[in-house]
């Protein structure tokens, strides 16, 4: 078990709980896709799992240790996390941003060593951003920026990767590229929890799919058993057809216009 949440409940100060009683465990090499309507608590769950928010009840364990007792630096050596639409308030080059990924591994004087430089180079090559390394992040397209931030997360050499809608605002090509990149890292042993809106990506890339509904974890399981017409109608208030395409080994979710009757 890389990362494990046990009965986690979290509320922002003076508010109703945003997530209720959630238990979820990530195995090494596994990709779990988190889906759910807007406001269902996906981002909050990711923030709690990353150690950034401390739950009011329940626990999160990272490799068997309580995450909220660990220092930020200790967590960041094992967990890389990208919030929704990561941004840089000031102007940095791609290489400088990827180098930030090494920060949790550096000694007290924060000097980069040979191994750190190698991890940065590897992350740049992996994400195909080496040729962008000396360009300013603000001069890049949305897709290129997203790849640069992924490179930063990979440079952290984490065991666990938490991503909040990494394909948001990307064109179709970059969405696929990003998801393939994540799949490769999972194949190399990383545990990945990724929040997505696209149910077809969830079906294609998730080893398991976790469905959030009104702050609760409605169901977790393999995509072919979880992503059914009835569950999607309940969790997303959406009528759809679910089609299995054996030649592609794919399950496709095809939304139906709300006014159309499913039976016709």
């Amino acid at each position: 078990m890389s990362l494990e949440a046990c009965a986690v409940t979290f509320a922002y100060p003076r508010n109703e709980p945003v997530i209720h009683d959630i238990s979820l465990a990530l195995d090494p090499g596994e990709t779990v896709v988190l889906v759910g309507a807007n406001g269902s608590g996906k981002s909050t769950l990711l923030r709690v799992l990353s150690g950034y928010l401390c739950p009011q009840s329940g626990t999160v364990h990272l490799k068997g240790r309580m995450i909220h007792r660990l220092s930020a630096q200790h967590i960041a050596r094992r967990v890389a996390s990208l919030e929704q639409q990561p941004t840089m308030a000031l102007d940095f080059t791609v290489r400088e941003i990827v180098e930030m990924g090494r920060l949790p591994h550096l000694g007290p004087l924060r000097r980069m060593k040979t191994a750190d430089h190698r991890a940065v180079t590897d992350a740049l090559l992996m994400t195909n951003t080496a040729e962008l390394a000396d360009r300013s992040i603000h001069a890049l397209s949305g897709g290129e920026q997203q790849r640069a931030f992924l490179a930063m997360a990979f440079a952290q050499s984490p065991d666990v990767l938490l991503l909040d809608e990494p394909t948001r605002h990307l064109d179709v090509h970059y969405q696929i590229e990003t998801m393939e990149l994540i799949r490769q890292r999972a194949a190399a042993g990383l545990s990945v929890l990724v929040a997505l809106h696209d149910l077809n990506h969830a079906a294609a890339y998730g080893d398991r799919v976790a469905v959030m509904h009104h702050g609760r974890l409605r169901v977790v399981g393999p995509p072919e058993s979880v992503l059914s017409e009835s569950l999607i109608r309940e969790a997303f208030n959406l009528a759809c057809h679910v089609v299995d395409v054996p030649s592609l080994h794919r399950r496709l979710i095809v939304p139906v216009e709300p006014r159309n009757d499913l039976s016709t």
Partner: protein
Amino acid sequence: MTRRRATVAGCLAGLLLTALLCGILFGPTSLGVREVWRALLPGRSGGTVPAHVVSIVHRIRLPRAVLGALVGAALSLSGAALQGLFRNPLASPYVLGVAGGAAAGAALAILLAGPHTWLLPVGAFVGAIIAVTLVYGLARGRDRRTSTFTLILAGVAVSALFGAVTSFAIFVSSRGERMADIVFWMLGGLGRADWTDILILCPVVLAGLLVLVALAPRLNALARGEQGAFHLGVHPERTTRWILLLTTLLTATAVSMAGTIGFVGLIIPHLLRLLIGSDHRVLLPASAIGGAAFLVWADLAARTLLRPVELPVGILTAFLGAPFFLFLLRTQARRPS
């Protein structure tokens, strides 16, 4: 980028050295390069130097140039660190009211105890800490972000408050001889430089620079916002407190010696950020050297432009800096944040 940085570093070092040299050479009495050289290194050169030259170099111009360099470095370094911390290129010790707080503290200290007492730097530091706490508290929204406009508005409000304290100190002292002392702080000048000041400021600037450079990678990570910085293993609040403490210490010490010299901490880091990027590992030392060179040049201009009248250098930097600030505000306001 690496090449450009090397070029910029070379230029800055050259500017600082020439500034220090010119700061010693030029003044009401023009000195020759050879005389100054002999006065600086008495043992090695053969010829004797007139006593008044030695006196001018050692007791007036050298301390003034060195103090200018240290004050410029302290203010510019603080500005660069504050811009990084607030993720805002408009932040600076003056815009944020830190310097105003220090000036008010200094004014009260002069009023109570007179100039040249230990109370002066302490008062400046306490005033600066109160100001920065107020501005930070006011500008920090519920979402833990500091927007440009609330930050500047909070800075304006706090500066006005502390400006009133300073004015009050002047008003109360108006019949005593201490008024001139207080007015000196408000105008900002290097005319009272002496070696004691330098002996205090030099270690503060060096220590501030070292610790801030050590914090630079964490300051870089804070550009991702508090959550993003946490994901990189940086404790956002702890880092924020350290940087506020160090920049306040640097600003307060500089202000307690040279009064309020504005805009150095805004212009220099901003220009350097445009030239060499935002990586604080490089930007912070570059800002320190750039600020040092700028203030020595500015002081040289201030005391030679209107000869024989010596203009307080704070007036000159404000003349240069205020239009620059307005220009920045315009370009920043157009950019969606």
